[in-house]
């Protein structure tokens, strides 16, 4: 580690320490409850306990991980691991859990540090590594909102690093481990499967290399056995799987994650307005849909005008898109192709998935970062996806106290990461259509400050216009209008970010499929 690395580590750690008292989402209590479950219950009851509504719904490795964390927790404060001590929020538990996030994130730090040595362009890789370690996404989701993404993306990056260094067995092993920590990484599994199969298990002339195939299969099976074995023996696998994959949610999350469905839902809202004004007579309006999504509640999204989307549709579209990229990956198994395919795999799932959460954008942004400095096209894609993706995380922290922190930190990150890479790789577009695209993209990025101003000022303005006297209970007539207005900034954020992310998705797909390298 160089002196700069230490400086970054110390400064960022101090910043994270300062965020200890910041807002915590319910995920904080979720993880505290898991500490309590794994500490005070035998392993046979872990996936059955319902003392808290926040039941254990991560794969077993994460449960083991929580079990490990619960041991020191007991010595810090025994009440942390008390199963019935719900919503415990004393200073000890906050400090302890926040510290575990900071410490386990060192896995990420170590992984990105390892990326520098042996990189094609170490100077650029250093910037990218620092940008990953200091990513606003991790700051927002892990250190404020509270999760352990830094740790798990550390494992993912480690696995990608192994792929780069041509140690594919280790890469596969690490990815199998990661899957058993958090199953959301299944989104990336197709790329791993094709990549390892084609480049590790098959020879260039498509003959199976049995030794390699068996060792990889063994490694993966053993990993899964280590994770699921105990539950398999106890016959709890169905229960475990039902916890991991609850198919009872709606198409959109409360705040529409900025993907294709956000655009479709928004289009439906607009059409509804048009239809209800009678300009398009003859189109049936689904009455359930009228009240469905405008309130932004969790639940089934039913479109008012457009045909309703079912899980199977989203699944089919996702698989269809992924198949295209996997075809390309099958033909070209270079490291760069693998990382791009991996990113696109995550991107497809994010774009078309059922009940996608906005936090899942990290699944796209992290691997995409590795490609940021390749050339201008990749960089611009990274730029748009990062800015839109990070901005789309802002609504996670809705408390006023964190507003300035998230904005200032993200702006600093954008300045310190995007500018040096931009300087290195920027090329003026070659032909007129590309000049237009370039200008439009710049315009799109330049409007984010305006969007932030709108999101900040809009609630103040609407508050001013509503009468002040009836503070406790509004008149019912005003209520519907006000609550619709309340969600307007969220919808606008979602739609605006969705435009950028869909565009970045198209860009990356075109780059990947059109290029021969």
């Amino acid at each position, binding site marked *: 580690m160089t002196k700069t690395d230490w400086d970054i580590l110390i400064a960022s750690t101090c910043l994270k*320490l300062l965020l200890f008292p910041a807002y915590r989402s319910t995920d904080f209590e979720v993880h505290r409850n898991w500490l309590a479950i794994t500490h005070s219950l035998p392993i046979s009851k872990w996936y059955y306990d319902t003392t808290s509504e926040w039941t254990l719904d991560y794969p077993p490795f994460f449960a083991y991980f929580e079990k490990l964390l619960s041991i020191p927790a007991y010595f810090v404060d025994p009440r942390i691991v008390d199963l019935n001590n719900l919503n415990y929020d004393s200073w000890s538990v906050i400090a302890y859990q926040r510290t575990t996030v900071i410490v386990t994130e060192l896995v990420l730090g170590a992984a990105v540090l390892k990326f520098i040595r042996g990189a094609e362009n170490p100077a650029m890789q250093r910037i990218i590594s620092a940008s990953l370690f200091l990513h606003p996404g991790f700051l927002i989701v892990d250190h404020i909102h509270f999760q352990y993404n830094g740790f798990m993306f550390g494992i993912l990056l480690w696995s990608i690093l192994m792929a780069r260094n041509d140690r594919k067995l280790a890469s596969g092993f690490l990815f199998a481990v990661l899957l058993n920590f958090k199953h959301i990484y299944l989104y990336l599994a197709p790329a791993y499967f094709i990549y390892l199969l084609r480049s590790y298990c098959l020879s260039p002339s498509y003959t199976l290399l049995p030794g390699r195939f068996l060792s990889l299969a063994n490694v993966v099976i053993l990993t899964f056995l280590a994770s699921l074995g105990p539950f398999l023996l106890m016959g709890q696998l169905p229960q475990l799987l039902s916890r991991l994959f609850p198919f009872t949610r709606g198409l959109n999350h409360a705040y529409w994650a900025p993907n294709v469905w956000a655009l479709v839902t928004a289009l439906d809202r607009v059409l509804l307005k048009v239809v209800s004004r009678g300009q398009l007579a003859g189109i049936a309006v689904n009455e359930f849909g009228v009240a469905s999504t405008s309130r932004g509640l969790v639940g089934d999204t039913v479109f008012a005008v457009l045909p309703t989307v079912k899980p199977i549709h989203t699944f089919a579209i996702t698989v269809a898109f992924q198949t295209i990229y996997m075809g390309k990956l099958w033909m070209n198994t270079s490291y760069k192709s693998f990382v791009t395919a991996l990113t696109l795999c995550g991107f497809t799932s994010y774009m078309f998935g059922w009940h996608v959460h906005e936090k899942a954008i990290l699944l796209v942004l992290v691997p995409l970062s590795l490609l940021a400095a390749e050339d201008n096209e990749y960089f611009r894609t990274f730029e748009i996806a990062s800015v839109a993706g990070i901005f789309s995380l802002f609504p996670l922290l809705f408390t006023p*106290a964190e507003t300035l922190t998230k904005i200032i930190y993200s702006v600093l990150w954008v300045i310190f990461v995007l500018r040096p890479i931009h300087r290195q790789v920027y090329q003026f577009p070659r032909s007129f259509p590309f000049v237009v695209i370039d200008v439009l993209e710049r315009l799109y990025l330049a409007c984010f400050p305006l969007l932030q101003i709108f999101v900040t000022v809009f609630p103040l303005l609407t508050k001013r216009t509503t009468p002040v006297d009836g503070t406790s209970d509004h008149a019912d007539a005003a209520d519907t209008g006000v609550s619709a207005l309340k969600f307007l900034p969220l919808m606008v954020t979602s739609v605006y970010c969705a435009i950028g992310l869909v565009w970045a998705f198209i860009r990356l797909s075109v780059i990947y499929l059109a290029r021969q390298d």
Partner: protein
Amino acid sequence: MFGDYEAQRHWMELTIHLPTRQWYTYDLQYWGLDYPPLTAYASWLCGIVGSWIDPSWVALDDSRGVETPGSKVFMRSSVLALDTLIYVPALFMFTRVWQGTRSSRTQNLALLLLLFQPALTIIDFGHFQYNSVMLGFTLFSMNFFAIGQELVGAVFFVLSLGFKQMALYYAPAIGTYLLAKCLYLGPTEGTKLFIRLGIVTSASFVILFLPWLPPFAPLRAILNPITRIFPFNRGLFEDKVANFWCATNVVLKWRLWATQSVLVKLSTALTALGFLPAVATLLFSGYRLRVWSTTEAPAESDKKDDDKAPVTPATPAAPTPILPLLPYALLTSSLSFFLFSFQVHEKTILVPLLPMTLLLSGSSPDEQTFELGMLMNNVAMFSMWPLLKRDGQGIQYVALLILWNKLIGYNPFRAARSSYLKLLSLAVYAACFAVHLAELFISPPARLPDIFPVLNVLVSTPVFALVWLWSIKRGVEVSWAIGGLGSRSKAPASSHKRPLPASASSLPLPADRQSEQHWSPDGATALRAGGLRTMSLGYAQARQRKALGRSGSVDIH
């Protein structure tokens, strides 16, 4: 129950709802206004903005104790806004004006060091106060003195006093500096300046207090703010604070020995004695360096135009050679108040900390100033620990200290070059750590519940006292260096009026080592010969550089 936060919020509520005359009289039991009028005006402005966003935050009486998330963000943003409007520009101007001879990179580093000063950050943004505004105004007055605009500087100092009475700690130094400047300018110009200063200062005060003065109010109305601002009926000290009284109280129980009035007189006398050296040095230097000396006056009026150009508001006159004394005088004066005066709070260490940090920002890492500046900053944080602990700011205390020391590249425990000072500071840091560790692991014995705050005081006070003595010593040295002590030499007048500034010449980069020889007359002559007509602190030099279009391009690695 509540503290400074509620007080400030309450004043916003007070000022926007009540007529001015009631500001200092309304329900004094509940956090009545006890700061000077400028704070009240600022509160009024913030209150208007606040009530525009959400009237319930500042509703009269009903809003007491409001601490909704939104109102907290608003209050904290108001600190940030005032800090950005006043303190940050003041610091920026300081690095440009006072450190004009340094490369712009070094100036920016100094700015960074000053901006991240942990003690002010944690008090203003953590504990909640608006100290940066008061300090910023004082800083502005220093800056304007440096460019020869005494009148503007005086107005800014009045603003500082009008924002928070704590600025009085600087008053002896500022007042004496202006007097010394008058002495330096001679009977005609000096008297003119003196009269102007008198008029401008009193006018500023009158304007600040206008709502409590005739014809807007009966004359006795002025007593309301005055009695609120200066409470003479409190004790010698309240909490544990790292000053002379509290530290010596361990052995000498002052309050048993003497009555309140005797103690007040004693503390006043000691305070005056404490800042006397600074006053004397300034006045003496000003007199010694006077430009109206009979033998030289005619010659100088032709040649040395810069130094004695009449002070006109339109063109900034050259600064006086006594300018380098000002930071030391401010330090001596404010520390003597902190150590010896009456009713001192632990937060007040911020006042002496400002001149020390300014000096620190202009020093190089192997200088005494640097070591002592870092020591005082770190110990100041330590001295506020009991307060910060009560606030629940333990983690911020640790994080900010590490961040700032890391930013500067200062390791308290690295003894690269051992000197007495380094050994001493090592011992102090060790003591601080020992106190922290003891507090963490040992619960105080029942007989001595206050043992840790007292230990804290006993560790901190000697450091502050040492800095105070050092500032006096440095004041005398600088005064000697600029030719203000000893017999007036018969050498050409230029040797007196070409001072080599103390802080400007002490660049922290090795490439500038040669300029550290600023005491040697050879170096001075060389610089003079080089045509650098150095005014104090290189202001003119910076202007020259700018004129040549090279400013900002000097990058030393």
